[in-house]
């Protein structure tokens, strides 16, 4: 690796600290201001709160329907993750481990969706769901997310499955294992790291999405957390202390999850994008 002088290392620390401050500062200010009264927030924006107004959180929690938002997002994300992992691993398994005509074209076809933004298809998606009576429903969102996340997941899983030795599968077959048994007890356990990458990336994509709920959901009780908070921002645009508490609440679950599993998340998201 490169060698660096003491001065260079000092410079590196300096630059990186400033950068970290620019990232962390706004989060810190958001949390701090969420505990102030509106008056204090405007008069002394940079000082610590003189009195901790935890009531801000109680109000934001109720008025933004945070609990509903969490629940709806959690349901949609959880079901979509399971569906995506199951469906795309089955697909990837067949593509990676068996020979049949048209296999390569099928794989290329699935890769087309890798970078094509699904939101460009939103009008027909909306119409399709409307004809199935699935607009304004969590199931509709789940179906959309399960579909649009398949290309990426299938691609990652296929890559990992390629590196599972074929001899292993063939040996199992000779011992009488069925296609399904090889999938379940040999291939899946060997690509566990890829399964967690796929699960993490899908979860974050779904939890953080705003576009599809904005277009497909119009009933507040069905709003995901991003939509719930955006409605809240429209309604309480002047009560900043509530807005800051609402924001803090809305991002808390992902931030906490991330801080616990940061290295796994980072590996998943960065590897995933470049694979």
């Amino acid at each position, binding site marked *: *690796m*490169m*060698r*660096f002088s003491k001065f*260079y*290392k000092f410079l590196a620390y300096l*630059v*990186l600290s400033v950068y970290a401050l620019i*990232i962390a500062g*706004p*989060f810190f*200010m*958001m949390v701090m201001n969420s505990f102030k009264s509106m008056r204090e927030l405007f008069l002394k924006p940079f000082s610590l709160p003189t009195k901790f107004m935890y009531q801000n959180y109680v109000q934001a929690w109720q008025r933004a329907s945070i609990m509903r938002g969490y629940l709806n997002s959690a349901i949609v994300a959880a079901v979509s993750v399971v569906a995506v992992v199951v*469906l795309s691993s*089955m*697909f990837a*398994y*067949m593509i990676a*481990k*068996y020979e*049949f005509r048209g296999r390569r074209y099928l794989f*290329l076809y*699935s890769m*087309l*969706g*890798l*970078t094509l*933004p699904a*939101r*460009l*298809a939103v*009008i*027909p*998606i909306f119409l*399709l769901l409307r004809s199935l009576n699935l607009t304004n429903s969590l199931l509709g969102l789940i*179906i*959309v997310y399960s*579909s*649009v996340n*398949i*290309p990426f997941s299938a691609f990652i899983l296929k890559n990992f499955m390629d590196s599972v030795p*074929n001899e292993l599968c063939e040996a199992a*077959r000779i011992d009488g294992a069925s296609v399904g048994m090889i*999938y379940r007890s040999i291939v899946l356990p060997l690509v566990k790291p890829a399964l967690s990458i796929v699960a993490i990336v899908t979860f*974050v994509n779904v939890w*953080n999405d*705003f576009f599809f709920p904005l277009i497909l959901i119009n009933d507040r009780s069905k709003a995901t957390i*991003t939509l719930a908070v955006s409605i809240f921002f429209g309604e309480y645009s002047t009560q*900043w202390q509530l*807005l800051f508490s609402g924001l803090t609440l809305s*991002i808390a679950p*992902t*931030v906490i999850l*991330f801080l616990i599993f*940061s*290295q796994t*998340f*980072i590996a998943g*998201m*960065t590897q995933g994008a470049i694979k």
Partner: protein
Amino acid sequence: MKVKLRYILIFILPAMFLYTLFVMYPLFDSLRLSFYSWRGVGEKIFVGLKNYRDMFSGGFSKEVFNAFYHNVYFFVLVSALELGLGFLIALLLASKIKGTKIFRTVVYLPNMIPLVMVGFMWSLFLHPQIGLVNQLLKAIGLGSLARPWLGDPNLALTTIIIVNVWRNLGFYVLVILASILNISPELIEAAYIDGASNWKTTWRVIFPLTVPTFRTLLILLFIGSFNVFDMIYALEGVQAGPFRSTDVLGTVFYRTAFGGLGSAYTDMGLGAAVTVFIFMIVMPMSILYVYLVERRDRR
């Protein structure tokens, strides 16, 4: 291994059915819809190429080209900042100083937060009178630099781009860092033995070896830049104010297809035509990406 058709179908159909029905078919159905005029309910009227004519000439075309230009500006500035700063910071991180792990966590953190939330958060910080940014400038004696960041048509789009960089930079840093750490140490040793300085080693060894990563990132940035929506929505609303100075194709599309107050043109067919336009811009890049990735995989 060979396998019976029955198994192929069982394992492949569920994924391909959903993918085809909810991704590929809708992409192509947009094309069909773009030849119609339709309010979303009632009768569809076939209008041939009228939507495309409207998009490229007349009042609506001004909106479209204004937005298109903003997408291009977005792409250029975001790429320069994210790849440039990303490379620099990745180089610093590659120097094996202590605390790299904590640092990686901090820089990646904003990436975990929905774009729309980041937008809302900064809409408060950037408020002209009581936002923290201007208050901070005043507090440190730079009050003369305070600006209506989101209210000045000359500044708003650039401000949004910088907020975007604030959120996404960590991702680029970490991807580029991974690619730098992948370079075999012997290559760098060899450069040193030949008497190369750090500066030369950086530009003659490290940079060329990270070019493939930059290429991939550039493709993703291009596609992403033509799909900007969430942050504009959060910071400037669907009208993409002030005076449409932050309007992008995503917001034009949203207004056209799904309305929003004060939209002069609302029509699902015209909206579909806008998505076809974006699709045409993005599609070559998507194919290039698939090609590059597939070629690398087969090696």
